[in-house]
């Protein structure tokens, strides 16, 4: 696409040599550098088939998809699929939940990870820091399907550990899987437990990159640990934090912070909990595989992709304003 756009004006100006579609140059390049293009080929083919073809296939959002007639043969129905979605209660629910959870998680995750990273540097004992890091990273390597079992072991209403503790203190057991309210807290908590170890380690890496000169100078001046954190570590870490925040902002709509499996697995697809657990991705997946409504699924998917793209562009613009070297493009 980019090729076409830049090629046409160049050709019109008569600067044929810079035209990217110039056949002569293209062939010459292929002959001369063929090994590199051969290396590129498998990956490029893959991306074309599995990433670009579905983009064109997104037209089914505007069609009444008929498996017999295929993507191109199905009839156009304009915005009917979208209308259907936006008139339902689900539209507001899933959009709100998606944004709500991602923002809450993003803010908490950043704050906690930075705090942990600073404290990890301060523990002093290398062995202890190593053990903490190992334990904190463990949940990151487990899938959300395993997470489902871990949460279930804790929250199973009859035998679960949490209700067991509650009853031993004389409190009534709570039926976690039929009370949507609690999931407003359970979801971010579970998500944080899985991710914080990972992001903390990233921030630890960033802190390690800070020159030790600053700390030595501060020590000579008699600065306390707290003062060093406040006046050296945090200010120097802020650019990294800020950029990571802004970059994640763009991903909020597009598959969440990269991992929506939590919302599909932990609440066990329980309809009673949808008011607080249903996000765009789970909705798209459900309409595709459970309800088998291709039209709805593709429309919501496209809505997500377009809003996601807009958010990326906005946050990139913000990053660029803040620090032009760090923007994505």
């Amino acid at each position, binding site marked *: 696409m980019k090729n076409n756009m830049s090629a046409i004006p160049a050709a019109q100006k008569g600067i044929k040599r810079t035209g990217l579609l110039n056949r002569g140059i293209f062939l010459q390049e292929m002959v001369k550098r063929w*090994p590199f293009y051969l*290396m590129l080929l498998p990956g490029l083919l893959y991306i074309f088939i599995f990433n670009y073809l579905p983009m064109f296939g997104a037209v089914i959002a505007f069609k009444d998809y008929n498996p017999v007639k295929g993507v191109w043969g199905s009839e156009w129905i304009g915005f009917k699929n979208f209308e259907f979605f936006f008139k339902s209660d689900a539209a507001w629910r899933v959009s709100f939940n998606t944004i709500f959870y991602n923002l809450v998680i993003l803010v908490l995750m950043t704050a906690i990870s930075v705090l942990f990273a600073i404290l990890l540097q301060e523990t002093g004992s290398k062995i202890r820091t190593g053990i903490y890091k190992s334990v904190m990273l463990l949940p990151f390597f487990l*899938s959300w399907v395993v997470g489902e*079992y871990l949460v279930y*072991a804790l929250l199973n209403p009859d035998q679960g550990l949490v209700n067991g503790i509650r009853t031993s203190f004389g409190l009534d057991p709570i039926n976690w899987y039929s009370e949507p309210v609690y999931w407003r807290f359970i979801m971010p908590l579970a998500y944080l437990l899985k991710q914080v170890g990972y992001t903390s*380690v990233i921030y630890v890496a960033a802190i390690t990159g800070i020159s030790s000169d600053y700390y030595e100078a501060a020590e000579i001046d008699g600065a306390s640990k707290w003062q060093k954190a406040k006046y050296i570590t945090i200010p120097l870490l802020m650019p990294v934090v800020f950029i990571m925040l802004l970059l994640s902002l763009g991903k909020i709509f597009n598959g969440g912070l990269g991992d929506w499996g939590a919302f599909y697995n932990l609440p066990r697809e329980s309809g009673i909990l949808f008011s607080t657990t249903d996000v765009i991705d789970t909705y798209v997946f459900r309409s595709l595989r459970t309800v088998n409504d*291709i039209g709805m699924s593709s429309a919501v998917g496209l809505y997500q992709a377009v809003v996601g793209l807009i958010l990326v562009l906005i946050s990139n613009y913000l990053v660029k304003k803040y620090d032009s070297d760090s923007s994505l493009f």
Partner: protein
Amino acid sequence: MFIVYSAMCLIPVLLVLSISLTNEKSLLTDGYHLIPKEFSLIGYQYAFSGTTSILNAYKITIFVTVVGSILHLLVTSMMSYAISRNEVRYRNQVAFLVFFTILFNGGLAPYYILVTKYLHLKDSLLILIIALLVSPVHVLIMRNFFKALPDSIIESARIDGSGEFMTYFRIVLPLSTPVLATIGLFISIAYWNDWFTSALFIENNKLYTLQYLLQSLMTNIQYLMSNEQASKAIEKSIGMLPGESARMAATMLSIGPIILMYPVLQRYFVKGLTLGAVKA
């Protein structure tokens, strides 16, 4: 504070371990505890009871993880290397094509139709590998790594008459073990933990991966029983179906390899993070 946080990370795993080792009757009457009230291996016995499904899921998962990770590294590194070289004229155009897929996608439904209707890959081993074969983020991380390699090494290899492929396999790849180890680690974990591809495309229970088997077990313990006689015998001997302990045993079995590999995983992981995660 870290002690509390570490406990929060560990307790659920220990709880599942304990449940998997507890007698089923005790689970029903006493509930779940961090230390088994009545120790029993019946859950594991049931999970393995002459049935093939868990072992089969292991086989499928290991195959997909190993083959998938190797292919992923090969395809990704070749592509990244080509677009990292300045003498490749169209490198930026290709990089843009790769990069754009991070920003925008066609959505799940067209992808699903493409794979099932046009490529006919539903219910195939191949789709489990293909689904994670190329990751644009990994391509960009690797490209940045290759760009930082000193040009002179590659130039001198070329002068010595080494072909581009030879240079790539003999010189570039050996110099790139840190990035290969990190990306390899990420992708093998992703393959091992991938339940989503199976949930989308797999219906044949001979092709269930561990994660998907586990997911299906949550709603229906029957998935464990491919050998009815053996499981019936166990059911009879304890007077009930060891549902809970068998489920948790299956969970432990699915994370077992991760725990075993953990020291290695963790070391490369922490090392690798400094490579490109902050400024990918």
